[in-house]
């Protein structure tokens, strides 16, 4: 431990702590802007400066480690003045259109000005010009960028994709893709993690709010909405609720009050995905074990950020991907076929909206594969943040809503579907079903949780031994299914490098593009700290355990769907509506041309 004095108070803190961390542990708040706990330490904004006795200049407290006997003052006239001037300098190159900025009231720069007591903006100078750069998922407005570089850290070090880096020099510095290339021409996965950490309005999801209001107001349209599992444990944060508060019922009511005609649950097609993907996996394993050719390991395909990443980074390994569409596009495809037939609506008059924790899903729905008979499976994707805005805009008192229900036939779901929202969840859900199908016995884990693959570690693995299978699966007797789970694209690269070298020991891999899975997706409420991530994760498992129905294959509406419409898993109809193929893109889009 190191002994230091902060503001006259003697304290001991762990060796290696920065001044900022030491102050925080002792309930002293030092204003800061570019710093992001556990993620980004760069010292670019200088707003966290403090006085250190014996040091010639003010010190950036986020960068300087404590030393024995250090005497620190965080609240002197000199420090306060310096912070205000630094803040005003940042403002001198920032458009002051706060009232009409989409980050109004949720902007870290704005909040900090308030905290610092800044009441002037004395410096007028040249302004950075930035054209808005649109892609289906992410919009960049570099005139608002304050060069904190959090997005660079997340894009390069957390996700290991490296789309964003500082370009040019000095006043002309911009954060962006190489050589000012538009973001929709480069190998961006659209995971949106940069939009979660951006403190201002420079990086955000591409707006779908206007399109959705228009559809709701169009009397000719049957507007169908569906909600991903991760929304129900996170959207409460946008209304001031404690992270991890489950609001499944309020969400259904809010959507109905907004004017959606049918309120469905993406969870339903998560259950369906397990049937389709589980069948696909067993088919591949059977082929491999009985002398046929099959590509293993098979990798899950629910996360469109992961999909776009692998299409760019490993275009030659796409056969490893399950051919299943992601659950929300499955639901869209079924709404516009199975359900449209039932209620006698022309699919062209149906408008499907997906509420997703994800920015990549906005791109996903624009893929040509995600349509049937010329009609897109899903018409619009709203992030969790966008939906919260619409609920506020509609004047709905979210906190006091009664709990509502999701509509059938696409609304019932098992606990296995809930855990699709968290890393390890898709794998666990698949194992609950596949193991039982193969052995006739329940998956032998406490509360059905496959403990080795639960949690936030980068790569998790488990071995599942199959003994005494039922007659149809005798070929699996004594076989150990090796599975691996990762979340975040850095972990995905490790597992894919193994596959590319032919050294992967696994049979089944789950990849989610964002660290922790969809609970900390690019469209989720800001901020996502490690603590908040853990609370959302716990909530997902609570939601699962609170249900009677815990296994996808026990969902009666899924059974009914097969009886009435799809007939058989991986059958003709399934392939037409629920499965897809992938595009070799290459690191520089060289496979599909620029």
């Amino acid at each position, binding site marked *: 431990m190191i002994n230091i004095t902060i503001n006259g108070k003697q304290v001991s803190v762990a060796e290696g702590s920065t001044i900022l961390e030491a102050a925080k542990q002792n309930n002293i708040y030092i204003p800061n802007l570019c710093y992001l706990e556990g993620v980004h330490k760069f010292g670019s904004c200088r707003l966290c400066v403090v006085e250190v006795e014996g040091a010639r200049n003010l010190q950036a407290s986020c960068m300087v480690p404590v030393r024995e006997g250090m005497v620190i003052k965080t609240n002197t006239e000199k420090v306060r003045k310096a912070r205000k001037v630094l803040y005003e300098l940042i403002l001198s190159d920032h458009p002051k259109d706060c009232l009409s900025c989409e980050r109004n009231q949720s902007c870290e720069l704005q909040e900090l000005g308030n905290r610092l007591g800044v009441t002037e903006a004395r410096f007028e100078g040249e302004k950075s010009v930035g054209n808005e750069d649109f892609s289906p998922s992410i919009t960049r407005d570099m005139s608002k960028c304050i060069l904190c570089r959090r997005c660079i850290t997340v894009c390069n070090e957390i996700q290991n994709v490296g789309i964003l880096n500082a370009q040019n020099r000095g006043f002309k510095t911009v954060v962006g893709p*190489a*050589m000012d290339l538009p973001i929709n021409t480069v190998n961006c996965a659209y995971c949106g993690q940069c939009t979660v950490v951006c403190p201002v309005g420079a990086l955000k999801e591409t707006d779908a709010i206007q399109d959705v209001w228009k559809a709701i107001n169009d009397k000719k349209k049957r507007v169908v909405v569906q909600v991903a599992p991760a929304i129900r444990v996170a959207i409460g944060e946008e209304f001031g609720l404690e992270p991890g508060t489950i609001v499944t019922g309020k969400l259904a009511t809010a959507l109905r009050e907004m004017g959606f005609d049918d309120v469905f649950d993406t969870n339903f097609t998560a259950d369906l995905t397990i049937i389709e993907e589980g069948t696909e996996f067993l088919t591949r394993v059977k082929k491999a074990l009985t002398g046929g050719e099959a590509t293993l390991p098979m990798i899950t395909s629910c996360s469109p950020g992961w999909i776009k990443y692998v299409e760019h980074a490993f275009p030659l390994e796409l056969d490893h991907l399950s051919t299943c569409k992601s659950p929300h596009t499955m639901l869209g495809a079924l709404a516009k076929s199975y359900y449209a037939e039932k209620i006698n609506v022309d699919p062209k008059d149906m408008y499907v909206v997906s509420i997703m924790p994800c920015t990549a899903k906005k791109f996903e729905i624009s893929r040509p594969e995600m349509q049937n008979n010329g009609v897109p499976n899903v018409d619009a994707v709203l992030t969790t943040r966008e939906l919260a805005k619409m609920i506020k805009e509609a004047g709905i008192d979210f906190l006091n809503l009664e709990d509502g229900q999701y509509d059938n036939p696409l609304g019932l779901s098992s606990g296995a579907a809930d855990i699709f929202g968290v890393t390890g969840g898709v794998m666990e859900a698949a194992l609950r079903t596949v193991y039982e199908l193969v052995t006739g016995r329940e998956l032998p884990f406490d509360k059905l949780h496959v403990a080795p693959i639960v949690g936030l570690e980068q790569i998790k693995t488990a071995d599942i031994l199959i003994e005494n299978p039922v007659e149809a699966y005798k070929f699996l007797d004594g076989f150990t299914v090796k599975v691996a789970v990762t979340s975040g694209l850095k972990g995905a690269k490790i597992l894919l490098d193994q596959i590319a070298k032919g050294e992967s020991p696994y049979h089944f891999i789950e990849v989610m593009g964002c660290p922790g899975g969809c609970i900390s997706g690019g469209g989720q409420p800001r901020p996502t700290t490690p603590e908040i991530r853990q609370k959302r994760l716990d909530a997902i498992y609570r939601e699962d355990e609170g249900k009677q129905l815990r296994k996808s294959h026990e969902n009666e509406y899924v059974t009914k769907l097969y009886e009435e419409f799809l007939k058989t898993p991986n059958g003709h109809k399934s392939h037409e509506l629920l499965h897809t193929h992938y595009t070799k893109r290459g690191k520089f889009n060289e496979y599909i041309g620029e």
Partner: protein
Amino acid sequence: MSCEEKKCQCCCGEENNQQKYDRIAEVIEKYKNREGSLIQVLHMAQSIFGYLPLELQKFIAEGMDKPLSEVSGVVTFYSFFSTEPRGEHTIRVCLGTACYVRGGKKLVDRLEEILEVKVGGTTKDQKFTFEVARCIGACGLAPAMMIDDVVYKQVNPDKLEAILAKY
């Protein structure tokens, strides 16, 4: 590093692009596992290829296993690197304090007239690339300018045409 540079200077102009890329590939192979060697590779690639267009940056990014945005970040940070074709010779007029005071700006103005390009540009005939420098360490000889490695001291704007005629 000097070895590759020499090799380059004697071969440039005789090689086709494929041969240049092959030599850049050799450079990458040699440096790719050395921490912090991107700048050196870019330096040598520029001396082999003449400049660093996007396609070449992609080639280097791929070979060095680095994101393209990082490579281009370095290329656009340093004024030494160019993403446009460069002239056969580089003129650098010093605009450090001493040269500025002694009329460096007049040299710039006159050169813009003679060469018919702005600072940073390359003449139509690809003969000269025209740049300014911040102090070339020849303050006692102000105003100074360099053409490639040769320093011209106490340059009079009226002498410029005669100097350029030597190239």
